[in-house]
């Protein structure tokens, strides 16, 4: 068996999650057993309690907290749901099974604890994330959205039935799905020296066809729009465990810009979680200035685009000079361009000319 090149993180992490879940159980159990109403205190996730931490370069929750007590008639049901969700997660983890948010919603019905709607059950899962400080993927609850990865990285599965099996992520020309199995795998070895994250599936395929992974010695990640949390965490691991710089390519519009920003600085919705972002990742394009410099075919920015730009301008994550310059340029030119716009110079132009230039520029 080949010796692992990198420090294992996944197994440790799983152990920690299980221990946290169990301690929540013990705490509740003890409170009940001593004749008290069980209660939990957790940080508040209301918007007034979400702050941007420039040091961590992500959103964090402030000092405000909420107390959920089973003594309160309005809390007793959500409290029960929370303990149930914790128990459900523990069962998933210990049986090494995965599920989705939708599964959670339906599974509760077996315990005569139906959630009113999907939103209610999602909220409870987010509560559990806040209390434990781990994201739901860590307790094996995955979203439906899937993205993909391609490149010379060998991973070793930890999921039941595949334990110890390895896979090289170039083995499938469409890329490998970033699902529960890949998310929980260990990294074995790689020859790549960088990660390129791409917003759109078309371009991801083009890059594979044009051998970008070889030409640029890179691992390609398809975010498929806004990157799912599992993908954000995966990118972070590529960056942290393998020490690879990350470059993000998106469309040249406010939305693409924000896809890159969430990979770099995280989202306000995940302010209660850590290790989902990659602070050192770079947004390599398409910039507003690229639109000008490369004379790309464009569309006008519509009203919603402009509104979004104004919001981003006030966002604390966008205070660095590069971001400010790009926002200003967008506002000035009032145009946007998609990644595919480079095809006007031939299908391979983006790989032959644009990509190397930008990788160099954002190094």
């Amino acid at each position, binding site marked *: 068996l080949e010796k692992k090149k990198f420090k294992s993180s996944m197994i440790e992490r799983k152990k920690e999650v299980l221990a946290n*879940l*169990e301690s*929540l*159980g*013990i705490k*509740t*159990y*003890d409170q*009940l*057993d001593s*004749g*008290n*109403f*069980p209660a939990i205190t957790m940080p508040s996730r209301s918007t007034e309690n979400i702050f941007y931490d420039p040091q961590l370069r992500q959103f964090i929750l402030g000092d405000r907290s909420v107390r959920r007590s*089973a003594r309160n*008639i309005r809390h*007793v*049901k959500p*409290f*029960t749901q929370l*303990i*149930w969700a*914790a*128990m459900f997660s*523990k069962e998933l983890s210990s049986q090494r099974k995965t599920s989705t948010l939708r599964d959670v919603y339906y599974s509760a019905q077996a*315990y*005569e*604890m139906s959630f009113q709607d999907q939103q209610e059950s999602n909220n409870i899962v987010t509560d559990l994330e806040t209390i434990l400080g781990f994201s739901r993927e860590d307790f094996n609850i995955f979203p439906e959205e899937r993205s993909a990865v391609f490149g010379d990285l060998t991973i070793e599965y930890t999921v039941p039935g595949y334990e110890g099996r390895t896979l090289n992520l170039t083995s499938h020309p469409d890329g490998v799905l970033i699902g529960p199995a890949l998310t929980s795998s260990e990294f074995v070895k790689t020859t790549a020296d960088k990660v390129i994250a791409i917003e759109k599936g078309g371009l991801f395929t083009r890059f594979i066809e044009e051998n970008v992974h070889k030409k640029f010695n890179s691992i390609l990640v398809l975010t498929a729009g806004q990157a799912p949390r599992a993908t954000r965490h995966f990118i972070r691991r590529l960056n942290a465990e393998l020490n690879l710089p990350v470059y993000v390519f998106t469309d040249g519009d406010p939305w693409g810009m924000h896809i890159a920003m969430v990979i770099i600085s995280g989202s306000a919705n995940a302010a209660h979680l850590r290790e989902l972002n990659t602070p050192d990742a770079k947004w390599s394009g398409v910039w507003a200035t690229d639109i000008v410099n490369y004379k790309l075919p464009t569309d006008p920015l519509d009203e919603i685009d402009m509104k979004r730009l104004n919001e981003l301008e006030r966002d604390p994550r966008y205070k660095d000079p590069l971001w400010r310059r790009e926002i200003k340029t967008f506002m000035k030119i009032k145009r946007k361009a998609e990644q595919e716009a480079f095809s006007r110079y031939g299908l391979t132009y983006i790989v032959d000319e644009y990509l190397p230039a930008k990788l160099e520029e954002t190094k």
Partner: protein
Amino acid sequence: VAQVTFEEISASDFFYRNRDIAGFTNPSRAIFAAIRELVENSLDAAESLKIPPEIYVRLSFEGEASKETQIYKLRVEDNGSGIHPRHIPSAFGQVLFGSKYKLKQQRGTFGLGGKMAILYGQITTHQPATVTSSVGGMAKIYDFRLMIDIQRNRPIIVDRKILMNKEQWRGTIVEFCLEGDYLRAMPKIVDYFKQTAMVNPYANLTFVDPKGRLYKFTRVTGEMPEPPKETLPHPYGVDVELLQRLIQLTPYRNMLEFLRNHFHRVGEITAQKFLIFSGLVTASCPEHGALSSDQMNWVEGRPTCSRCGKEAKLSSSKNPKRLSHEEIVKLMHNLKKFREFLPPDAGCLSPLGEELLTAGIQKELNPEFVAVHQRRPATYAGHPFIVEVGIAYGGEVPSKGSFLTYRFANRIPLLYDEASDVSVKVINDMNWRRYKVSPDMPIAILVHVCSTKVPYKTVGKEFIADRPEVRREVANGLREVARQIQHFMTRIEHVDREKKRMGVFSKYLPKIAQFSTSLAGKQRPPDIEKLLKSVHKIGEEEV
């Protein structure tokens, strides 16, 4: 040029041609109206003797009449006063002949209903009606077969039998055939019996329908309301026609006696004051000459001059029979203008009373909560009236998205034209949310208006007109019962809240125990008995 001919028609001919106004609009309405009119006559006949009514109604199928209508035989038996054999032909065979043209509260007012039913039966089936009756203490029962000569408004006696009354039976049985549509009328008829039972809780009502189904409404009390006393007309309620008739009849030769003896609540002083007010009598002071009514005082029943205190001299009053037509008209206007007549007294009314109303509602609706209220007597246009209201919640009251409304006038259920009725308007205008009541709750509201002259809008007697005096009384009555139901609602809300609270804790605490046991990896569930008990204790304190 068209020829115009003029002819006189009899009262029965008039109603024959205009049977719509008496409620015989179509085959389904007709069968309902026929039952209703006869049942009401029977109730009145029993109540006039203060005997708890015992009424048996049978409707039996006789044959098909047309595609949608059938011939039915209607039989109504009662234990009422019975009718003297001399009056039977006219009472049932002559329209506008009857015992009800007097001023007291009665169900019927036109003396029309029973005869209309028989008239309708006759014109649809051309068969005679049978009336069997015996008054109390008589050795004989009289049995008549009658028809109506419509053009002449006269009864035709087809057959007459006299039977021995061995069992000392007393009452009346009416039986005749008529065309109708029972299937369509059925819901209203059953409703009618149910509602009649509600406001006549001292009556036994039995109804056998053409399918042989038996509807039985049993009395829950032997108590009956005081029967109404007959009364004289109140001065505010008279018209020229009535004045002229009284003048024709009166044996009194001066206005003072005339007023005192023919009008309700008019005594000597009131009569004197009115006569001076209207200029029919003049007053003069020996010192100050002629006095108008506001220059006078009444000291111990004697008129005095307000300036010197000396007794005023009154001219003698006129003989009413000498009044000219113009004077009679003026008298009528003055009667309405004079402010010092006492309001009519309600002795001529016979409301149900709060106790009987409650008993009736409980008997027919078996509600969780009931509140009733009887308003003090009031008047409109010289007619006394009393409003009684009730509200019931839960039990057999259905929730149907709007309040169930029961309207009664002189203990008759009003079943048609609900939307036009004054009570319904008042109910709709009330802000029920204030009283914690909403239309989706199982709530029934009952309004009973009794009066010597119920302000119906139509001869069909189906809804009460929107008179401000009546509207005000209904509204005040409803507010009173609404306040009572509000207290009840507050109480059940509280109990409900507590129940729910307890339910929530006893549902979820064991689940928290179960899940946390599994989550903590323990074998034995934690002891939550103490906690559950403390929840109940908290609950009790708050109750």
